[in-house]
């Protein structure tokens, strides 16, 4: 390296070290500091004088800095770009409360003795409390906050000061900034100067008990006597086109303060009356308060000329458009481009097509070396307008002079080019770029591509990379970023290149794969008996990069050219695999040859686990996977182009015969519905357990109509010919489902809103064509027509209603899942794996002792497992077919040796699979050896941002979840909140689930017999008095209520009438005669109240109260239902009780219940009864079951990480502002997330420090995030 470059590098390193922020300390400015740092006291309310020059002592005083272009700052001498700006101040003529700190002032005033300034606590207790506070502040900061609250509460309730004996004064705080004291004379306002006097007396040592930090502040500073005025860089004036000047909102607000301040000053000097002063004083307080926050509750916001609300300090910082979220986290970048995307299946999957127009603007700074100088000279000569060219040259000498090549003598510049110069050359083929589509929901939303400069004006990408970006070509635009140095390019290529992202970290299976027409094409190509002409065969073959295995084609073709062999050519010769196709037929691949079966979605589709594609990528690597996809896509594309594949309306036409059949099904269904309705009207309808007659009716109708559509759909599929394009698409999995076919060709079926038949509209009817009260099939949204036959006007209307609901759901869902995602990210962003595989927060707190409990990276796993043992043993068995069978002892011994290296699950699986597959000694030895190696390579990289990946893996599928709470086929006890609302409920750590449910397992004695189970269920169910009362009559004369008991149901819940009597007789006089219970409520009747109606009303109320009385069973368990299930472990059938309502503790203790397996979905209840570890397990189970129910595949490790951080502190914390985020150490992260201003205020009084260890803080201050590759430093000797 040349001497000069070494020098430069040294300089850069020096600079990097010098400018590193090590921490940010928060505190409160003292009046002294404010005055000392001020360069100008602002007293002049006019901005400018008569000639338009800024006034001295005005808000635009040049000493504030930010001089006009060309001139220099009178304070620091810098020009506009370099002057940082300087503060001024306003001397307030009277002190005012700092609104943002009003809560803290109130706290102090309550705890302190107004006379002696000591905290109103026992003198002996104080040192103990201080010690405790110091301990908590250091080790358990969130407990410290709670402790302060407790101390203040204790001190404020003391009536007489234990130090000086003065009696306490009650303080009242009227938001936002007024304080009153309650004395004998009544309520008197406490003036800011009085408050200041009191706060001044608080000794430094006791500040910690108020939540204040003695190093960072003094409480009296919270009463302002001097107001800092920010420099003009903070509140720049702008010049309008008309030449008029417009001032910043803050400047406007400050003028208000100065005006009123000056007025008070004058009046005070003139000896004005107190009353007049008081009004102005209030105004001063108001202006200073709104200067800090213009959205104070109960205060009208200040406006500019009565129109525009001023954005003052708090508004500038907080919210989505605030400084934090919009400018500090959301930074804008150079070297980026955006345009519409379009497909190109001739590209490699790693490539992106970049329009030449864009390539000529985006540049890469290249340092000239002896090795590239000739190449760069050519580029310089081409200049900015000819594509591979260059736009600028920066000379190493001449002080970094930058030359624009458009107008330069380019031949001369090229000739003078020397080593060390920098050429800003055009983007060229082979450059690494980052490509992105918003919303960036997971890490595959930004991937590294290899640029390929192409004509025309769109970005081109390969079709198989659409799923990770969730892109289509209906006008989508994408962004491209050019990586600016080779270090970054190398990192991007290694970690982010498309082929390295094929396996999704969410579920450990390919997310990149074939879709739509590719599947159709593969299906037709590899269909049984599909013979290609010689021409076509070789034409397709010519798309492959190189032709190997020619002998293989020969072997397979038997004189025929088949599509299967085209597929086989791409397979490695060692590849053997079999699976089931979509049509449930075998697909068999042996030694790289597709012997049997048709390739469809199950074999090569995107987002398919255990497909052929998945196996190939896993076993032959990412590079092979990428090549396979690229090459096969090319063949499929060309094949379908040549064969042609299209669909038209005639393809939806069913033969007459089928139409008649479908018509018949429709008519029968409608008739059946009418019959059901008639039965219901006669009251003969068979009721479904637990449902009202109306609900049962709907349920029955629903079943009939759903069945009709299914039947019609089956007929349609039966009559469609096998070469019908619609049929092919559905069968191959390319697009559409059976339901789509049914709706297109046969019948749309029932339209629903919120899962029910359409019922809104006019009074008792949906549309004016129907008679009032018509609840028949057609009148409630049943559509018998198909899209082919066309809809009747009423049907069309119903269909539109259903469609509208879908649109609204999507809109709501994106909002809700977006917010869920944001909370997940902020809660988890700083979690990373350390070199010991321990998951820690940025401040070193341990969250997991081993990531995912086995340290395996889901993206390197095989659908969650580090090793696919079946495949491993099978493939090794092929290599070692002969040998002595391994004995159990032999295997045991081998496993013992590696025990400490692999997780126990892997060991157990190896053990059982080796025995099951009757492995020989060689196989056993080799399999175990390779399993250990595979496990090691599947381990996660130290530094990995596992928190963010977990947040993505739960947040990204959020948009795909249903919003509706599902109704389980009529059984209310099983009708649980599911989908997105349930996930939010869990993540929010909501105290009570919206649908509390229990599954109660029974003990040996009760679980096998329905009667015994039912007996337990009846005794568990919470029974109110009304459930066992046949009749309740009010006896007005005796002022009592007569209840006729239902002895039968009373017996069922296991109570006798006497026991019931006893419940009431404790408080009331009661009388029991056989099945009649008379209760006399103690109603108070005022003497003058003789009106019988009043008495009757009171008796009625008493009756209802009695009827609501809980008399038997377990409180909260409101409904029970029995069901026979199969025990997964033992395979036995047993009865279990499903309940609505939950009461874990009592149910567990209940006789007949199996307390080991019985569970509830109420996580807090589990926490209270069974502890934090049980709650953690419950969180995992609940999230996993919601995801599974929604058909979403999410790796356990992500869910475990969420559960572990929620329970880390021994209590359940929500993933949000009051939970996980609230206990983060970083002030900046908390401020950036939500409740910005209170966070900053709290940090100031507590004197908090931000040590800048997490991602958000470092983005804010503009330095490298110390996670992942950012956590590694390279130290090297320079020179």
């Amino acid at each position, binding site marked *: 390296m040349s001497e000069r470059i070494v020098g430069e590098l040294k300089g850069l390193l020096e600079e990097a070290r010098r400018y590193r922020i090590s921490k940010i300390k928060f505190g409160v400015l003292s009046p002294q500091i404010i005055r000392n740092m001020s360069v100008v006291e602002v007293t002049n309310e006019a901005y400018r004088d008569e000639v338009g020059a800024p006034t001295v002592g005005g808000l635009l005083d040049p000493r504030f800095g930010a001089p006009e272009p060309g001139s220099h700052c009178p304070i620091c001498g810098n020009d506009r770009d370099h002057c940082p700006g300087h503060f001024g101040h306003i001397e307030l003529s009277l002190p005012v409360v700092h609104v943002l700190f009003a809560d803290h002032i109130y706290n102090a005033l309550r705890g302190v003795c107004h006379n002696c300034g000591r905290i109103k606590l026992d003198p002996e207790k104080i040192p103990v409390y201080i010690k405790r506070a110091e301990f908590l502040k250091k*080790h*358990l900061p969130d407990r410290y906050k709670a402790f302060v609250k407790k101390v203040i509460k204790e001190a404020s309730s003391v009536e007489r000061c234990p130090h000086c004996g003065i009696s306490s004064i009650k303080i009242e705080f009227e938001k936002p900034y007024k304080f009153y004291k309650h004395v004998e004379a009544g309520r008197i306002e406490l003036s800011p100067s009085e408050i200041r006097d009191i706060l001044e007396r608080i000794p430094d040592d006791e500040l910690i008990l108020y939540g204040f930090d003695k190093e960072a502040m003094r409480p009296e500073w919270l009463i302002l006597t001097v107001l800092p005025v920010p420099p003009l860089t903070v509140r720049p004036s702008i010049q309008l086109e008309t030449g008029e000047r417009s001032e910043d909102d803050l400047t406007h607000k400050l003028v208000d303060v100065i005006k009123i301040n000056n007025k008070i000053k004058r009046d005070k000097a003139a000896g004005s009356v107190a009353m007049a002063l008081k009004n102005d004083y209030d105004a001063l307080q108001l202006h200073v308060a709104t200067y800090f926050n213009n959205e104070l509750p109960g205060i009208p916001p200040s406006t500019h000329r009565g129109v525009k609300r001023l954005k003052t300090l708090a508004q500038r910082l907080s919210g989505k458009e605030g400084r934090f979220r919009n400018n500090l986290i959301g930074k804008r970048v150079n070297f980026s481009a955006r345009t519409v995307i379009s497909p190109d299946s001739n590209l490699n999957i790693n490539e992106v097509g970049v329009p030449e127009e864009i390539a000529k603007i985006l540049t890469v700074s290249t340092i000239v070396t002896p090795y590239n100088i000739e190449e760069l000279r050519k580029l310089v000569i081409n200049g900015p307008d000819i594509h591979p060219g260059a736009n600028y040259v920066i000379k190493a000498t001449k002080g970094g002079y930058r030359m624009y090549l458009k107008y330069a003598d380019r031949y001369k510049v090229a000739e003078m080019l020397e080593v060390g110069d920098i050429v800003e050359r055009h983007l060229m083929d082979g450059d690494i770029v980052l490509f992105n589509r918003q919303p960036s929901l997971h890490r595959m939303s930004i991937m590294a591509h290899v640029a390929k400069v192409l004509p025309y004006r769109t970005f081109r990408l390969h079709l198989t990379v659409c799923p990770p970006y969730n892109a289509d070509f209906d006008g989508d635009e994408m962004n491209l970023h050019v990586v600016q140095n080779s270090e970054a390019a190398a990192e991007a290529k290694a970690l982010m290149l498309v082929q390295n992202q094929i396996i999704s970290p969410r579920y450990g299976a390919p997310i990149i794969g074939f879709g739509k027409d590719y599947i159709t094409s593969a299906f037709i190509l590899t269909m049984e008996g599909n013979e290609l002409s010689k021409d076509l065969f070789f034409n397709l073959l010519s798309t492959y990069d190189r032709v190997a295995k020619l002998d293989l084609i020969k072997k397979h073709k038997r004189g025929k050219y088949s599509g299967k062999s085209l597929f086989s050519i791409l397979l490695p010769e060692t590849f053997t695999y079999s699976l089931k196709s979509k049509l449930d037929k075998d697909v068999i691949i042996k030694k790289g040859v597709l012997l049997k079966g048709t390739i469809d979605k199950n074999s090569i589709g995107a987002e398919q686990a255990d497909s052929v594609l998945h196996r190939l990528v896993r076993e032959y690597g990412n590079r092979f996977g990428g090549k396979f996809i690229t090459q096969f896509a090319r063949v499929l594309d060309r094949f379908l182009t040549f064969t042609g594949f299209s669909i038209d309306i005639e393809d939806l036409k069913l033969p007459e015969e089928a139409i008649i059949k479908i018509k018949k099904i429709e008519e029968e269904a409608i008739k059946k519905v009418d019959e059901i309705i008639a039965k219901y009207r006669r009251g003969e309808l068979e009721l479904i357990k637990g449902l009202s007659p109306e609900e049962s009716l709907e349920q029955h109708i629903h079943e009939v109509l759903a069945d009709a559509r299914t039947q019609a759909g089956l007929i349609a599929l039966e009559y469609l010919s096998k070469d019908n394009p619609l049929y092919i698409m559905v069968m191959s999995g390319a697009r559409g489902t059976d339901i789509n076919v049914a709706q297109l060709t046969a019948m749309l079926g029932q339209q629903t809103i919120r899962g029910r038949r359409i019922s809104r509209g006019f009074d008792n009817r949906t549309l004016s064509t129907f008679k009032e009260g018509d609840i028949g099939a057609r009148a409630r949204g049943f559509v018998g027509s198909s899209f082919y036959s066309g809809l009747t006007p009423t049907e069309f209307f119903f269909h539109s209603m259903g469609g509208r609901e879908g649109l609204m759901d999507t809109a709501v869902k994106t909002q809700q899942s977006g917010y869920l995602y944001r909370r997940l990210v902020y809660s988890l962003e700083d979690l990373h794996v350390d070199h*010991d595989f*321990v998951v*820690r927060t940025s401040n*070193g*707190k*341990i*969250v*997991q*002792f*081993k990531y*995912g*409990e*086995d340290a*395996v990276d889901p993206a390197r796993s095989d659908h*969650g497992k580090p090793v696919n043992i079946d495949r491993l043993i099978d493939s090794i068995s092929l290599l070692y077919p002969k040998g002595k069978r391994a004995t159990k002892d032999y295997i045991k011994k081998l496993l013992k040796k590696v025990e400490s290296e692999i*997780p*126990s*699950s*892997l*060991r*157990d699986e190896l053990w059982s699979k080796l025995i099951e597959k009757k492995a020989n000694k060689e196989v056993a030895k080799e399999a175990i050896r390779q399993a250990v190696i595979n496990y090691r390579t599947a381990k996660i990289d130290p530094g990995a941002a596992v928190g963010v990946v977990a947040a993505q893996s739960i947040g990204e599928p959020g948009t795909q979840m249903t919003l509706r709470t599902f109704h389980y086929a009529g059984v209310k006890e099983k009708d649980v909140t599911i989908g997105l609302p349930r996930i939010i409920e869990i993540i929010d750590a909501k105290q009570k689930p919206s649908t509390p449910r229990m599954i109660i397992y029974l003990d040996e004695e009760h679980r096998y017999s329905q009667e015994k189970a039912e007996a337990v269920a009846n005794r568990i169910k919470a029974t109110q008095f009304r459930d066992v009362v046949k009749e309740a009559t009010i006896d007005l004369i005796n002022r009592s209520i007569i209840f006729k008991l239902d002895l039968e149901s009373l017996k069922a819940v296991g109570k006798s009438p006497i026991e019931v009597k006893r419940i009431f007789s404790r408080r009331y006089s009661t009388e029991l005669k056989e099945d009649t219970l008379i209760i006399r409520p103690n109603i108070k009747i005022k003497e003058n109240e003789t009106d019988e109606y009043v008495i009757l009303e009171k008796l009625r109320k008493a009756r209802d109260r009695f009827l609501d009385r809980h008399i038997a069973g377990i409180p909260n368990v409101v409904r029970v239902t029995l069901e026979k299930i199969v025990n997964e472990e033992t395979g036995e059938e047993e009865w279990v009780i499903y309940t609505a309502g939950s009461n874990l*503790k009592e149910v*567990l*203790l209940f006789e007949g219940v199996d*307390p*080991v*397996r019985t*569970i509830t979905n109420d996580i807090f209840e*589990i926490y*209270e*009864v*069974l*502890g*934090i*570890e*049980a709650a953690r*397990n*419950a969180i995992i189970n609940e999230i996993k079951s919601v995801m599974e129910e929604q058909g979403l595949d999410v790796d*356990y*490790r992500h869910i*475990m990480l969420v559960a*572990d951080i929620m*329970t*880390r*502190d*021994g*209590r359940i914390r929500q993933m949000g502002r009051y939970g996980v985020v609230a206990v983060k150490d970083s002030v900046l992260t908390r401020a950036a997330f939500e409740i910005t201003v209170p966070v900053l205020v709290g940090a100031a009084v507590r004197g908090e420090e931000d040590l800048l260890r997490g991602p958000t803080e470092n983005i804010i201050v503009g330095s490298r995030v110390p996670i992942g590759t950012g956590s590694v430093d390279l130290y090297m000797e320079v020179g």
Partner: protein
Amino acid sequence: MDEKLKNIILSHKLVPKHVILDEREKKEIIKKYAGGDPFKLPYISRNDPVVKVIGAKPGDVIKIIRKSPTAGETVYYRLVV
């Protein structure tokens, strides 16, 4: 606490095994994982039902032997606070 409830808590399938570490093991764990600062460990409340049942005191470290869907069995440690 009721003897019956104690047994129920310990035997419930959601509750993994909790073991109080002795002084030596405790020191070792704190040194190995938390660099000597016990407050870096995850916590468990002194009022946690299981803590009460096994009689752990604040400052103790509890070893939890979890059943894991990924690893079969793993251990976790919590500091009683």
